[in-house]
């Protein structure tokens, strides 16, 4: 009864929420469309909300024995290219329409117009053309994908290994300087990573780790060790000591207790903090920019792809979908643990 809304309030609320949903969903839809669009669609205006799966061209034979190809980019058919060269046609169809057919096949189709006069031809688009293009245009994209995975895993490993030990120590033991240690960890966590990226580069050069994946992971672990310590600390405090003691009473040693009781109970915290570690490493571009040269990560590669090509942005879009997917999957898998982290929000 306290929560009852008047019709006006209900309407305003619905409109607001619907607006919010549209603001989130529409850009994403267009973004997906871009990643699956061919070059011709990219230059079309107005844009369509969904990508097409086929391309239709109109072909007229010319007196000189060539074919004139017309394409409709929104304002009626326009003449695009006049040729009878198989190679030219093949290139044109691949680049402009993402249609991967050999020039001979296209010519064979077009030759029908010699008898029938002007005709329309519909071809199936290669939907994943942009993705293939991304990996072939950007020379080290496949390598970069592998690098990103390795760097992320290394970051998770380092952060969890070192951070959870500290979290456990802070939760279970009283020791001198605990308060100061807590504040120090907070400062490290807040400290902008850019601030140490450049001197870190110098340090890594000295250690022979510059432009290595381990070097990047070492940098990404700096804020994440502190974050992991903080998250695991609060979870270890929440795990009742008596649960551990019960296990000891029934004859387990400390190691067995930790492995069988403490670790499984702390799993949500570990999952959540590894997600933060993963995302830091996976999404970062500025530190990667500073600390790497040859061994680039996927985020960096995609970032560079935007900078260089404003015409081929659909390839960069395809690349960034490759970039998003692992992060999305990872987030989805452990989202219920994230909910627990924020005090049990139902997600």
């Amino acid at each position, binding site marked *: 009864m306290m929560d009852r809304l008047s019709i006006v309030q209900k309407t305003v609320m619905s409109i*607001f929420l619907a607006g919010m949903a549209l603001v989130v969903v529409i850009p994403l839809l267009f973004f997906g469309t871009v990643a699956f669009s061919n070059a011709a669609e990219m230059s079309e205006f107005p844009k369509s909300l969904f990508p097409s799966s086929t391309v239709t061209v109109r072909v007229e034979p010319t007196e000189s024995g060539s074919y004139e190809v017309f394409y409709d980019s929104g304002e009626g058919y326009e003449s695009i290219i006049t040729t009878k060269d198989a190679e030219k046609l093949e290139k044109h169809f691949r680049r402009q329409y993402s249609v991967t057919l050999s020039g001979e096949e296209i010519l064979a189709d077009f030759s029908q117009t010699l008898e029938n006069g002007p005709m329309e031809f519909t071809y199936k688009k290669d939907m994943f053309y942009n993705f293939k293009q991304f990996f072939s245009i950007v020379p080290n994209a496949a390598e970069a994908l592998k690098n990103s995975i390795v760097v992320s895993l290394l970051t998770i490993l380092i952060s969890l290994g070192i951070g959870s030990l500290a979290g456990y120590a802070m939760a279970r033991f009283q020791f001198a300087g605990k308060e100061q240690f807590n504040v120090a960890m907070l400062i490290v966590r807040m400290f902008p990573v850019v601030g140490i990226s450049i001197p870190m580069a110098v340090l890594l050069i000295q250690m022979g780790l510059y432009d290595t994946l381990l070097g990047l992971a070492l940098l990404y672990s*700096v804020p994440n060790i502190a974050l992991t310590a903080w998250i695991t600390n609060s979870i270890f405090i929440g795990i009742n000591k008596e649960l551990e003691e019960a296990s000891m009473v029934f004859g387990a040693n400390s190691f067995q207790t930790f492995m069988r009781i403490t670790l499984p109970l702390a799993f949500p915290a570990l999952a959540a903090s590894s997600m933060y570690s993963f995302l830091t490493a996976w999404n970062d*571009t*500025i530190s990667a920019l500073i600390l790497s040269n040859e061994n680039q990560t996927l985020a960096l590669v995609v970032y560079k792809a935007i900078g260089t090509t404003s015409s081929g942005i659909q390839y960069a879009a395809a690349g960034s979908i490759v970039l998003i997917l692992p992060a999305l999957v990872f987030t989805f898998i452990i989202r219920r643990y994230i909910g627990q982290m924020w005090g049990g929000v139902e997600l």
Partner: protein
Amino acid sequence: MSKSTGQAASTVGIPKKSSFSRIIPYVLLAPVFIYYAVFWLLPVVSGVKEVFTDLNGDFTLVGNFKLMAESDLFNEAVMNTAAFAVISVILQYLLALVLAVLLSRKFKGAKLLMFVAMIPMAITPTATAILWKTGLVRDGWINTLLLQFHLISEPLVFMNAEGFKAVLMVILIDTWTVTPSVMIILIAGLQGLQREMKEAAYTFGANKWQIFKDIVLPILKPSITTSIIMRLIAAIQVWAIAVMVMGYSKTPFLVERIAFYVDVVPGVDTSTKLAFTYSFLTTIVVLLATVVYLKVSHKGVQKGGEQA
């Protein structure tokens, strides 16, 4: 408890006398200390050293700061960062608060909507940049939408925006990305708020607005201030979207300058110095915000404004 179990328990229990267990916490903390000594303190110290030495390696107190202050776009970078931090935080907070209040109501589809609202959070900044870039170009999807709903008659040219307008665009894009994470914190706070707290106010005659203003908001206040400062710290370090959507030097920010000197004009001695000095400045600003945060959160504890 029998004697034998008592002994077994004391080996795990809070260490009191055994010197071995007194060492344990330090053993567990040793890796962190070593790690941070090497990979945090060392870079920080050498970074600070760079800031206070000139190109010849001689000590200078303000030389590099002068260099920075006189460098291109310094004033713009400072002003834009300040404007961005203040406006984006306020905007994102208000939006997140309204969304959190609406979505924590119980109605059909609330969970689905919550899921939708959270999607932008999972999208990599680079991808966000591309997404908006494809929208903002002249024949992009934003103009498509505006034309189709007859809000404009001619396509607008967003990418030519300059100065404050450009900053405002970066703010809007940032808002799209960041609002969900703020919203989650607030929803967590709202869910933690006992229903009876609101009901009590309602039975004693408070209306909806009074309940929100007098009960809900003050109880959420500790978590709101904490997350505002966190947000502020992140906002100060904005750069990626600005560079990826607008390009370098179009919307200068503090961290954008660092990236600029590292990425665009590397190799020049002064640009390294400038990058160091900008990092130093950014760090100081962030640390100031952290200190404010510590003060505020400490006050919250003293006042006894606990949540449950």
